[in-house]
Structure formats: structure tokens, C-alpha cells
């Protein structure tokens, strides 16, 4: 008998007579908040993770991206192959488009990355990237130390259940809640071990 058959047969023997409960689903799946309330909550929650959050208008997007890169003295920035060039009109540092795909060692020399995002959760301050439009491959938002992440206001939801229901599981998904952190040394939270140590979130209203 193969291991597969052995395991399945042990499982079947073990669960003989087991009855499956009806799963109680009494938990909340949405918030009693309007769009402005959700944005305010998202800002508060992301700030709690010590990320930099700004709510801006579409018209201010390009200027803000240029400013942030300047403030943080970025010498180069990588962007997804399909990122709207209009977002980069004020950028003065070197811009690398991930097309053809950049090698990881090259990315390790790059100071920043700009991406968009798929869904954000106000209640938990979480941003989800699904490798869709203007988000690029997972690796580009991982290796550079500064991640500038754009959150279009219409992608904000209140709760985790709402976010899960909007996502396509077949795409590679990255859920981001603040910058990289660890509490492994005497439980002191330190921002930044491996992922980007600086997260700047631009909510575009």
C-alpha cells in the first residue's frame, strides 16, 4: 500500500462515527462605518504599526512619491513593469522598471520600490498585494528597504472577511501590516529584520 493509501485509510478508520458540527458563523463581517470613517480607521491602525501614512488626492500622487523618495534620500527606485509613468513624473533618482525581470542581487542594490495594492483592511491596518495591476512580482516589494505603497480609496474594506471575499486565491498574495518587525530579543519590538524596514502608505482619495 502506498503511504497515501495508508494515511487515508488510517484517517477513515480514525473518524468512523465522527459527526461534523454545523459551523456557527455569528461573527461580524462588516463595520458600521462610512467610507470616510474607514479611511480614518485605516490611517490610525497603520500608524499603530509605526508606518508613515498620508491621505492625498490623485492630483498630488506624483508629487508625493517624488517627495518621499527625496526625503528618504533614495538613490534608486524599482517599479512594476505596468506602473503608470504619470506616478513618476517628479522622481529625480534612478528608476528601474522590472522589465525584463531584475535579478535579486540587483534588487538588493536598490533603495526603494513603488507599488499599488489590491485590498486594504481598515480594522487591522492591513494592505494586501495580489501581483495584479501596478503591483509587480512579489520579490520587488520585498528586497528594497523602503516600500511606498499606494492604496486607492475604493479598495479599502472594513474587515478581514470582506477582504478575503474580494481576493482571488490563485494569485500569489502578500498581506502586509506595517514594516517588518520582530519581538524575539527580550520581547522588544524592533522594526525591520528582513522585509522593508520603512513602509510609506499613500491613500489616494
Amino acid at each position, binding site marked *: 500500500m502506498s503511504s497515501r493509501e495508508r*494515511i487515508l485509510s*488510517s484517517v477513515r*478508520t*480514525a*473518524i468512523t462515527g465522527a459527526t461534523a458540527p454545523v459551523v456557527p458563523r455569528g461573527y461580524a463581517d462588516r463595520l458600521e462605518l462610512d467610507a470616510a470613517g474607514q479611511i480614518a480607521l485605516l490611517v490610525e491602525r497603520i500608524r499603530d504599526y509605526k508606518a508613515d501614512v498620508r491621505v492625498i488626492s490623485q492630483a498630488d500622487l506624483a508629487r508625493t512619491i517624488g517627495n518621499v523618495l527625496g526625503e528618504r534620500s533614495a538613490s534608486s527606485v524599482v517599479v512594476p513593469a505596468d506602473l503608470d509613468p504619470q506616478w513618476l513624473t517628479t522622481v529625480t533618482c534612478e528608476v528601474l522598471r522590472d522589465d525584463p525581470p531584475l535579478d535579486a542581487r540587483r534588487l538588493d542594490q536598490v533603495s526603494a520600490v513603488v507599488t499599488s495594492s489590491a485590498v486594504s*483592511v481598515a480594522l*487591522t491596518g492591513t494592505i494586501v498585494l495580489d501581483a495584479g495591476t501596478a503591483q509587480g512580482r512579489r520579490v520587488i516589494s520585498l528586497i528594497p528597504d523602503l516600500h511606498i505603497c499606494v492604496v486607492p480609496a475604493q479598495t479599502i474594506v472594513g474587515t478581514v472577511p470582506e477582504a478575503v471575499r474580494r481576493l482571488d486565491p490563485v494569485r*500569489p498574495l502578500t*498581506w502586509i501590516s*506595517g514594516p517588518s518587525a520582530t519581538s524575539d530579543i527580550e520581547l522588544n519590538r524592533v522594526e525591520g529584520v528582513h522585509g522593508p524596514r520603512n513602509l510609506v502608505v499613500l491613500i489616494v482619495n
Partner: protein
Amino acid sequence: MSRPARHDRRRRGTEPVRLHPKPDQAFLGMPAFPDAARVALGDQQLRANLRHATHTIRAKRLNAVGEMPDWQDLRMAAAGIKDETLAHLDDYLVQFEQAATAAGATVHWAVDAEEACRIGVEIAQRHRARDVIKVKSMATQEIGLNEALEAHGIHAWETDLAELIVQLGGDTPSHFLVPAIHRNRDEIRDIFTERMGQVGRAAPDDLTSEPRRLAEAARLHLREKFLSTTVAFSGANFAIAETGTLVVVESEGNGRMCLTLPDVLVSVVGIEKLLPSFADLEVFLQVLPRSSTAERMNPYTTMWTGVSPGDGPQEVHVILIDNGRTRALADEVGRQALRCIRCSACLNVCPVYERVGGHAYGSVYPGPIGAILNPLLHGVTDEHDAQLPFASSLCGACYEACPVAIDIPSVLIDQRAAAVREKAHHRVPTAESVAMKAAAWTFGDAKRLARAQKTASLGRGVARHVGWLPGMLGGWTSSRDLPEVPRQSFRAWWSQREDTATVKALEE
């Protein structure tokens, strides 16, 4: 930022870093719980760290949970989803296999640790890997994967900060959320300074014990490994039957590195990690971070389904392991332990764990959940495991904290009975079985229990019996005061227990 790989020269240092625990600290052949506990209780540093850590997390967790008005609903949904999965586990496993395979993954099945390791080693060998990187996974620890790889000349590098500390320090994790909880910052600095250079990029000469500096040293040391290693191993927090998706929940970003950068990804997944549908994550992504690190959400969660063309590893393997899980599943009382999502909340609230630490349990799975899970996976005939169900004061705090509502005290009682039965089978009554019976006599009858409660001040008579029980059995509580049993939770737990039959069965 990156520097050329120079591990080879450095690895030939005079005193090689051990990639596995020192022989006297290995889980296998660990001293029995009472002996290990007595040693741990004498370790002031460990006790101070543990007290600080468990109290800190405990307080934070109460906040994180307290702000969710529907917490109990989420908890009941989580327990229900897991029970439903277990009741149809055969179907869900087959469904997962089909979906993951269709998405480009290769699914393997392993009956035990040895088979799982063999599969993992073969994959690494096929790619001629001399080094592999790993993201913390209890399943790979459980099967001893690092040791198996090492035996074939393949170095397995842990990439979590804490696991790195543990690995470079040559010992075993003591807590599954903060595995290096037994090390303070000065010890960590010494370990980094002494060891990093032997196995890769050395720690900076002026390294201090400031946590930020230590994290920075780890970042640079590991970055080199992330960029140069082509095979990675992981576990998974969840595996979705409907879609074949795997989920890894983490904090530091080393998980993202391991799951994204290498060409080949091998994930070792216990068969109990299944969830029926992607939508079920809406419950578990709420209960896990809040129970675990006491955060609204952990910094990073990665979900992948087979191979994504042009993005991440292009060869993806999943090794589904049994290794005792079907044995646990066959135990009608104990099978609820397979709901466990390894959040560690039960460790942090456990008065016994707080005092003795994780090493005393002699297992990958310490604390209250370890006390029930190890005997379930291995059987109470294992002498070490047979003692674990007694490593508890039955205060019920673990049950209240558990996000999947595992009734650990009830399972413990059931296992104590089984352990005593097993002993009785082999020899004349021992001190343990006599003590058990005395306690069972008190517990077994509501009237006697009420009398015990009346004679002492309310509740404390019972508490004394409870505290005394493991002491009599294991002989280790005499070296420390056992904490007072929280009256409220014990009584609440007691009144919830409908079935005292297992205890009654002990009365003659």
C-alpha cells in the same frame, strides 16, 4: 550592500557551529519532565525571562482580544471549522491534493518522520543543494529535518531571528512563538560575535547588545543566505482544500524571503492543517495573530497556490505528514488537540510553563498543548510522554485562552487516567496511582467535591488538591510553590464538565 559568499572558508573554522542541538539537549532522550523541570526551576535567568515574557504577552493579548466584541463567535467558528474538517479529513486531503497538483505543485505523502525527511532530502539532493534556507516550522522540527539534511551533508539554515539565535547557540527552542525566550540580549550578542563569522557574514566588530543592532546584524548575515540559496523549506499555518493554497503567517519577512526567492520550495504540512475553503481564512486570520503575538494582524502573511509563472519558486513541493496525527485523530476525547493552530496563548497563561519553561517538556510542543499532544501523537506507553499529562495544575486558563477552544483540562484528565491504567497494567500500585485515585475520589463525586470546597475556604480546598496532584506524581512541585489556582476559572471549567466518567472509572 551584498558581499561575495564566503561561507566555505569560514565554515572551516576551528570550532564548527552545530546545526543541531547538543546531544544532551536533544529532544530525544531528554530527561523526564520532573528532572528537567527541577533543573529549569533552578535557572534564575530562564525564570526571570519567562515571567517577563509570559506576563507581557498575556497583558497584550487581553487587549487584542478585548477589542473584538465578536471574539467568542470567532472562537466558536474556528473550533467548528476545525472539527468539521477533521470529521471529513480524508475528503479534504484528496481535494487539496487535486487542487495543488492542478496548480503545479507536487504533493507527497509521508506516514512518519523518517519518510518525510527522506522525501525532503531527495528533493534537496536532486538540486545538488549544499545549503538550504528554512522559515520556522514546527513540523520540520518535529520530524528532525535539519538533522536528516545534515546527515547528508546539507546545511539547513534557520532564518527567523530567534531560530538563528537558537541554532547558533547550539540549543533547542523553548517557546514556539519566541523560541529564544530563554536568552537575554548579552548572551545573544556573544553568540552572534562568536559564531556568525564561522558560518557566513560575521557580526560587526562593534556589535552591542541593543536589540536594534542585533537585528541589523542578523539582517546582514541572513541577506547573503537568502540571495545565494536555491532551495527553501517551510511549514504552513493553513492548507486550503478547495484551492490547494498554502498560507504562512510571520513577522520578520524571512518567510517572504524563503517563499519568494529560491527556485525550489518544499513545504512540510501536517494533515491537520487543512481548512475546507479559502473563505475560512476570514476566521483564522482574525484569531491567530491576536492570540499569538497579540497584534491586530501579524506583519506579513504569504499565500501561494502551486506555481505562479514568473513569480516566486517555479518548483513547488508539499509533503503531507501523518507522524502520529491519525493516532490522535482516533482518540475521541483527544482529537480536539488537532484543532491547534500553534498560537502559543496556552503557554503564556500556564502557571506551570511560566515556571519551568519549554525545555522541561522535552518536546517540540511544550506547555499545555504539548502536555496533551505528545501523548496523543506517540501514545502513553512512551515513558516521557506518559508524565506530561501530569505537568499541569488543571486551572483551566489554557482552555479560556485557546482560540480554537480546545478543552485541554478534560483531555489531561482523560490522559492521566490512561497513563495510570497503563502503569496499573504493568505493576502493583505506585505512589502515582494511589495519588490519582485519591484525587479521583475527590473529583469524581459532586457531593465529595462540595464538601471539600466547604471545609476549606471556597474553592481553595480543591485548588490544594489540584496543586498537590502533580507534586505527588512527579515529585517536582516540592521545589517550588505552585501558584494558586484561579478560583473562578477552575470552577467555571468544572461546572462545564458534563462527563466525569473517565475519572469515576478509576474508583474501585
